[in-house]
């Protein structure tokens, strides 16, 4: 593996006093590596990736992202967020702004980029996700799949080193899942580091370098997709796979 870009070192997190949601997480993600995180609901996979850009804070252990240790230091958090893009299950586009304005917001206000340049860059990203003709519409005028592609383009406008996906296709109609996965597969081919929480096993097989299976706040098993799907090592992952692949 190349030099790790994300390192979890014995990371622990609790919700309240009694719910131990992440337990002694040790994980290293190499630059350019594509990781799929799966597991039953409540297993802590969303929390895991949300720690990477500090949407959730961990209470114990060390978490280092691209050389910056994530702590209470706001400056460090700002630094990391500039390098990490995120795509959410519910898209979280800003409904009062047009598609183009959604994309130019951060480059203009955080990156201090002139408007014209930001718009050019935004259009380039929109073309990349094949939705440039919708630039002047409002998010709610688009279909779910289109909205999620806009959300991906918005995250890419920051030119992130790392992209986090939190169940990006779970809120979509079955007919729209493919258009989003296609865009993600294209991204994966361009060498960006990706950490993706998903149950799309087809996607995992197609692009993942490594599959991580979590349960009860722990990493139960990690392996290449072939090995994980064909020959799961633990009872728990075998059980999980039989449920999601069994129908």
């Amino acid at each position, binding site marked *: 593996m190349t030099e790790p870009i994300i390192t979890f070192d014995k990371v622990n997190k609790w919700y309240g006093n009694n719910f131990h949601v992440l337990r002694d997480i040790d994980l290293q993600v190499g630059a350019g590596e594509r990781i799929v995180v799966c597991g039953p609901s409540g297993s802590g996979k969303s929390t895991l990736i949300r720690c990477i850009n500090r949407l959730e804070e961990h209470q114990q252990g060390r978490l280092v992202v691209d050389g910056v240790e994530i702590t209470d230091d706001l400056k460090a958090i700002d630094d990391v967020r500039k390098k990490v893009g995120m795509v*959410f299950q519910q898209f*979280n586009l*800003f409904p*009062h702004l047009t598609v183009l304005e959604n994309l130019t917001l951060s480059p203009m206000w*955080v990156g201090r980029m002139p408007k014209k340049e930001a718009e050019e860059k935004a259009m380039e990203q929109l073309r990349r996700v094949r939705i440039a003709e919708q630039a002047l519409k409002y998010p709610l*005028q688009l279909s779910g799949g289109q909205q999620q592609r806009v959300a991906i383009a918005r995250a890419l406008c920051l030119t992130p080193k790392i992209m986090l996906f939190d169940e990006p296709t779970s809120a979509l109609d079955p007919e729209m899942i493919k258009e989003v996965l296609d865009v993600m597969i294209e991204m994966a081919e361009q060498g960006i580091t990706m950490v993706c929480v998903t149950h799309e096993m087809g996607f995992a097989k197609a692009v993942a370098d490594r599959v991580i299976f979590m349960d009860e706040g722990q990493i139960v098993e990690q392996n290449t997709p072939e090995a994980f799907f064909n020959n799961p090592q633990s009872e728990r992952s075998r059980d999980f796979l039989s449920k999601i692949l069994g129908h």
Partner: protein
Amino acid sequence: MSTFNAIAPRPAPQSNSGPVAWCRANLFHDWKTSAGTLLIGLILVWLLPRFFQWAITNAVWYGNYDTCHAASGACWAVVREKFRFILFGRYPHAEHWRALLCTAMLLGLILASCTRAFWRPWLVALWVGVLVLYLALMRGGFAGLRFVETDLWSGLPLTILLASLSMVMAFPIAVCIALGRRSGMPAIRSLCTVYVELIRGVPLISVLFMASFMFPLLMPQGFNIDVLIRVLAGITLFAAAYMAEVIRGGLQAIPKGQIEAAATLGLSYWQTQRMIVLPQALAMVVPGIMNNFISTFKDTSLVAIVSLYELTGAMGMAMNAEADWRPFRIEGYLFIALIYFVFCYSMSLYSQWIEAQVNKSKQR
């Protein structure tokens, strides 16, 4: 395998639009609505001609109180006789043109502020400029203009001044209080909560009373703030507390995901509030905010308690001045009711326009 045969769309069997269909759906839907329609219709048929007779045909438009006493209809002559006093109150008669000019200027500024073309940073400077000019001209005391003390400012100009300034100032305060009540810092949060609960816990009239009579007692001898400013501050702080709660309602309706998305894009707290949270939250509570504005406009009539005579107060004074006109105060009150209605209804129409503007992004 069977083939899929699309069914061509066809028109509804019974017309759903047009006046006949509307009447059927809304006025004569079943026997209960039909009975209601007939009953209300009968009342109107009985009432309207009588009102018309009183207000128009038998009314006295010109004349003095003798002709009014003799007539059976309304005495609009009282409005003709007293309208300058009703509109301008105690402001010196010969100087009414100044109050008129100032008010026209302020209304023009308000109308301009309501249009999109003026939503620019220099609008703030324009407000400051117009207000300075307003105060100078209303006060006078220079260039041969007679000096007019603020407690003589009255009538409609005072109503508009108090209402517009308190709304303009209460709004940003309310936004800050609403944000403060959701702040992560306990000190700020409790401070804002205490403010809202304290102000909401007392009637406006007592706030005005304290501003007018208690405040000077607490200040050192010789130190005094103009009564108009004290009253304005009272109304502003009062309106802000209510408006803050309306705005907080809007803030609470913003999904957490919006704030998370803003955070992942690197926006700071204030950038997030200004560009993501507030535009959506305020758009949601336009009707509530306008409700506050309208009630603030009418609440200004309470300043009569501290001897400032805005429209309602001036009206009362005008009517009480001469015993002979006193029986016709109902006509006077109808006159100012009309003025209030015109202003409040305009605000209501404006809020509908704003709602239509902010809802553009929701149309599919």
